């Protein structure tokens, strides 16, 4: 990443950190393509690299014998691997994989740990980011326990839209089914209802956001709280 300046990255954490902290990390950052489906973290396996996402969306999933469901989402506002490494461990129970293809800056866990040990300001920023992940996970638990499929899907699409360029999201029903933890027909039904409301348009394997405000009306209180906390803790970048 030798020729890339801090302002050229699209990752909001890299942009939000102090210039000295970015300079410390910069020699260790390597560009990485993130193809669809690529595992970034395997559950209960040592995390060797962390990823500051520039584009694309990564999905954090909880797995059990019955299958798996999404419990968190990370895009260019965040990084993958922060929870175990910043909290002093080397692995987590959850997994993480690429949900929408993109690119990231990869850094070895040892290099990031050394940098955070040497820099209180970097450590503080990344711990605040860890808090935003916790806020999002707790809010997701609340949303899953409280709201209908349509509301949850609207929230999820807004979160995806926040992390991507343009209005076209490459999402199959099969993957949305895992994201929402419901059988595929439930996704088809919820998509149909959101289409009926005029918020989205769906074609095979894609969802197009037509009217974000309408989606926000459907998403109601399920969307916005975690995003506001991110803005408070990290800022707008």
């Amino acid at each position, binding site marked *: 990443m030798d020729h890339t300046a801090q302002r050229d990255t699209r990752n909001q954490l890299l942009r939000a950190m102090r210039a000295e902290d970015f300079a410390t990390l910069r020699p260790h950052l390597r560009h990485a393509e993130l193809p669809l489906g690529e595992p970034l973290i395997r559950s209960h396996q040592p995390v060797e690299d962390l990823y500051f996402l520039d584009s694309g969306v990564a999905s954090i999933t909880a797995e059990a014998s019955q299958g798996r469901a999404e419990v968190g989402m990370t895009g260019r506002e965040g990084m993958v691997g922060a929870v175990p490494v910043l909290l002093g461990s080397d692995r987590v129970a959850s997994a993480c994989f690429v949900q929408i293809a993109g690119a990231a800056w990869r850094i070895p866990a040892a290099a990031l740990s050394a940098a955070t040990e040497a820099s209180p300001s970097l450590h503080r920023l990344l711990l605040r980011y860890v808090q935003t992940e916790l806020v999002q996970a707790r809010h997701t638990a609340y949303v899953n326990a409280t709201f*209908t499929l349509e509301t949850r899907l609207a929230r999820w699409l807004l979160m995806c839209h926040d992390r991507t360029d343009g209005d076209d999201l490459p999402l*199959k029903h099969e993957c949305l089914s895992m994201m929402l933890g*419901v*059988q*595929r*027909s*439930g996704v*088809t*039904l919820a998509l149909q*209802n959101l289409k009926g409301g005029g918020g989205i348009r769906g074609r095979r394997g894609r969802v197009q956001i037509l009217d974000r405000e309408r989606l926000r009306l459907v998403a109601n209180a399920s969307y916005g709280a975690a995003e506001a906390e991110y803005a408070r803790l990290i800022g707008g970048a």
Partner: protein
Amino acid sequence: MGRYFFNLRYGTDPGRIAIDPEGSVLPDAAAARAYALQAARDLIRRGRSDAVRDWFACAFDIVDAAGRPVLTVPFSETIPDAAEE
């Protein structure tokens, strides 16, 4: 093996059907029926929807890759008959 599509009928109005665009590859019609029952149980348990008041009034219309009807599986069939218990 064949691809089966599980169209969800969630009301008596003809428009109240959610067409399955992707389908699932399964060995035969019996496997498709078992899949439909499992999907129905999952939706009854976890599928709170703004559009469905009563999941037990819903049904899967299963069609094959050519669009031919294979069978209909009402969600009420997820509950065994009293005689079978």
